[in-house]
């Protein structure tokens, strides 16, 4: 049994690429009429760290978040999808509570509270139901992504009154009530809700409120603002014109850049940086500041290219326009002309042709994230390239690998020599042939992301072939990815999963493959166009039914 499984795995790998069924779109027939987006089951997602942060920033402005977030879980390569399985552990709720108390304390801080609370209590040392109601109904609507029910509001007012009475401070009551809002399952979990679809008898669609939150999470990586909530509550969002107006407003908003950032931070697995460290003796230039700024550089590069310039998605693999700080410039060896401020000041630059770097693959973030602490890992890098940009899942090692057949390369071997030793073992070769050659293309970038030309004293050979296209180095690989149709097909699938917060159904995958990709290709691969196309399709809000005819979940 075990052997058969192993052989089948390897066989599949040797035959070509370990591409998941999902990536190929080899599903069964669509659930809906031919060519239409069929929708899918309802999902309940826990707010991701990014969504939580963005929401707090949008609702309360610049406040500090103390405590730590429970690690997000990843499913189908995305945190946004893993969120549909995540819960809140005791330790996690403790941290949410700590953060909530900290945020609420800043909201009622005497120096700032007038920014948030427009009314004044009649007596600052006692409860004031009218003022509390005015503030909490407004804040509650933004945090729960819908108006509070009367019962919920009554609960909030009760907290405010009790807090004010016990502490002799109206604002302490407000602090507690805000804490309750921020630790509520109504805030922490984003629930899809269904209603009968008036255009399709017996079918369901998302409620206007669920529609609004799906839109804002996709386009802003955050909760709906007051205007979007108004549109959902007035029925405007249920009309085609109203939906278009709101989608266009969200895309035109400065928050759209934050939404695109949130998607790419998730897609690029930047949450994994929390576990990345580099050997200080071997890589003295690497630091926590560099790691933070490297992520920021990648996201700024992408937002600049895809949002500010409204460029072609594929150009992120080749772009030479980027932004750096003095610290990053020094890490890259970029001479800085003119006057600079502190080490965190960002400046837009175009990399000269004399520099080997081009595109996000050659930036510090990718090289450092997918490496060990002490040396590079072509295997990890190759795996990430396949999984992140091409949606090709690499299966875990088969159970029966006999490592005793693996011949370790000598200590003076270059990484390519060591890796080629892997390929000498048939049991390993199947998977590693998919990962290692791609990863070796990045060998000019050491584990800290610094450019080098030699490894173990030997010149680095970064050449290779991707799907029949030869390249000489990492920028060549970037160009090959740029031109590879799998890369754009992958982005449509992944972004669609991100948008719905769960893995797409077979029917949805077919639509993504047959319709969405075609439309996106015709529009020149603009990210805003892709998101808009998804957001305006009525099928994006359809809810499938279970055997009993009720909305599926």
């Amino acid at each position, binding site marked *: *049994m*075990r052997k058969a*499984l192993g052989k089948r795995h390897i066989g599949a790998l040797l035959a070509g690429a370990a591409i998941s069924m999902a990536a190929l779109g080899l599903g069964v027939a669509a659930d809906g009429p031919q060519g239409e987006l069929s929708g899918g089951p*309802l999902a*309940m997602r*826990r707010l991701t760290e990014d969504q939580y942060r963005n929401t707090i920033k949008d609702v309360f402005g610049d406040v500090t978040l103390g405590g*730590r977030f429970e*690690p997000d*879980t990843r499913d189908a390569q995305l945190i946004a999808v893993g969120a549909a399985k*995540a*819960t*809140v*552990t*005791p330790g996690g*709720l*403790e941290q949410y509570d700590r953060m909530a108390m900290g945020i609420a304390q800043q909201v009622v801080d005497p120096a700032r509270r007038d920014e948030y609370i427009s009314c004044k209590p009649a007596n600052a040392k006692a409860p004031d139901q009218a003022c509390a109601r005015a503030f909490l109904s407004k804040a509650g609507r933004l945090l729960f992504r819908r108006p509070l*029910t009367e*019962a919920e509001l009554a*609960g*909030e007012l*009760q*907290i405010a009154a*009790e*807090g004010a009475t*016990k*502490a002799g401070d109206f604002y302490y*009551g407000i602090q*507690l009530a805000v*804490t*309750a809002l921020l*630790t*509520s*399952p*109504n805030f*922490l*979990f984003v*629930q899809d*809700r*269904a209603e009968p679809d008036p255009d399709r008898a017996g079918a369901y669609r998302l409620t206007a409120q669920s529609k609004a939150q799906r839109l804002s999470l996709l386009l802003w990586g955050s909760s709906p603002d007051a205007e979007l909530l108004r549109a959902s509550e007035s029925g405007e969002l249920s009309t085609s014109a109203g939906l278009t107006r709101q989608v266009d407003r969200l895309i035109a908003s400065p928050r759209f850049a934050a939404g695109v950032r949130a998607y790419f931070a998730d897609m690029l697995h930047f949450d994994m940086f*929390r*576990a990345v*460290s580099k*050997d*200080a003796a*071997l890589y003295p230039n690497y630091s*926590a500041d560099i790691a933070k700024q490297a992520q920021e550089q990648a996201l700024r590069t992408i937002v600049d290219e895809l949002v500010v310039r409204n460029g072609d998605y594929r150009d992120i693999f080749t772009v030479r326009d980027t932004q750096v700080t003095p610290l990053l410039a020094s890490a890259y060896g970029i001479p800085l002309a003119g006057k600079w401020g502190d080490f965190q000041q960002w400046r837009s630059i175009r990399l000269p042709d004399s520099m080997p770097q081009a595109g996000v693959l050659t930036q510090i973030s990718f090289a450092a994230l997918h490496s*060990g*602490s*002490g*040396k590079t890992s072509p295997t990890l890098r190759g795996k990430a390239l396949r999984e992140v940009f091409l949606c090709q899942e690499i299966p*875990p*090692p*088969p*159970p029966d*690998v006999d*490592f*005793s057949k693996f011949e*370790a390369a000598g200590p003076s071997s270059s990484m390519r020599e060591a890796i080629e030793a892997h390929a000498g073992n048939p049991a390993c070769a199947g998977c590693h042939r998919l990962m290692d050659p791609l990863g070796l293309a990045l060998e000019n970038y050491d584990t800290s992301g610094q450019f080098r030309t030699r490894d173990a004293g030997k010149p680095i050979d970064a050449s290779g072939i991707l799907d029949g296209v030869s390249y000489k180095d990492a920028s060549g690989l970037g160009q090959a990815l740029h031109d590879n149709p799998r890369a754009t097909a992958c982005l449509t699938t992944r972004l669609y999963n991100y948008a719905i917060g769960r893995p797409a159904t077979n029917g949805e995958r077919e639509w993504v493959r047959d319709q969405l990709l075609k439309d996106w290709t015709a529009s020149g691969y603009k990210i805003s166009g892709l998101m808009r196309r998804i957001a305006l399709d009525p099928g994006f809000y359809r809810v499938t039914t279970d055997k009993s005819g009720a*909305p599926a*979940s």
Partner: protein
Amino acid sequence: MRATERLLSRRRVMHGVLQGSAVTLALPFLDCFLDGNGVALADGTPRRVRFAHWFFGNGFTAGKQWWPDKTGSLKGVTLPEEIAPLEVVKDKINILSHMNVLPDGKPNRPHVTGWQGTWQGTVPAGATVSAPSVDTMISDQIGGGTRFKSLGASCTGNPGTSVSFLDGGVAQSNEVNPAAMYARIFGADFTDPNAANFTPDPKVMAKRSVISALKDQRTAVELDLGAADRQRLDQYFTSLRQLEQQIDMQLTKPEPLQACVRPKDNPDEYAVSDQLDVTIRTHKLMGQLLAHALLCDQTRSIRMMFSDSTPNLRVAGEATSYHTWSHQEPLTGPQEKCKFYSMQTTIQMAEFVKMLDSFKEGDSTLLDQTLVVMNSDNGLAFTHSLSNIPAFTAGRAGGLLKTGMHLDLAGDPGTRLGLTAMQVFKVPINKFGTNSMETSRTITEIVA
């Protein structure tokens, strides 16, 4: 899956034990286990037995055998080289050799299947097990009256690495930063049991209303949810109960605890990592904090991940990590690099045991009141072997366990250790594990 019984009856235990193996009957002991709260023995003697799980990745090396030749008492036995650091504490530990994980033909997912089988009792066909881990079932049993049902630390800086799972297979993350751990346990919310004065804070009293309001939202929020989503919300509300309990404890004058001392200094912030010296530093600081948390009865169950499963421990300035070495040093050689790391691991294991033993608690020590289970993910990392996965226990859990022995489990499922640990803490369970990992056989030789 665990087989939960209402309570172990004498008959049921007798039946289970006799069907298992011909071992010394532990019934007299089982009958005098702790009371329902786990705070006193049946004779009324106050006890706060504690549980600690200490995990290390990569097992041991292929050189000389790590377990002693002789089984039974360790008196007069010289421990093999890789576990020689435990020599100084050998009368306080048990060595359990030849415990296996039996996958029944399911895939051996490297560095995962080993602890899943042992600690969650199941080798899954897929990636995850929808069942709680042993430590959770124990902390559910003994942690009810404490501020934290369980506290976990990961010494390599990675909060995502954990072998502790709640109901439904929900992973519990660990603290990675000692300063954050200090703030969590001994920060502003800590109530010193030995403080001269105790005045409930009205602000904290008011916070009860937050919990009430959140509880009131349950019905509405669960409306129309599918079973899986409802279960996720159930976990939220279970977590809410701990938050409620934490508030209640801040409002109740605690019983004085002579052995409880709030650590004076909040550890400095530093960059945690899997660099060996940094990991050892973190282990020491976390160990001290967790021990103080036990002494101050903030928790009765702690988790310590000394190294991750797939440990990337690395000596400063060296490019290659432990895990990489474990696949590069030939099995036929002495595996010197791997041995270095495995011995560093046993040195820290011994330090942890000694540290718990250094804290006096009445006429005994903290170690005496604790059962520590120390185990790994693989027998032999090179081959990701599921055979002979190393395991140790330390401490006597308030006199409920015997120590100073080496037991050869002769290929039995590793779930026997988890079952025994759970039964020591009176978890109402008489068998544990699924398929070939299912066992009803307590390791009675170590039960007092």
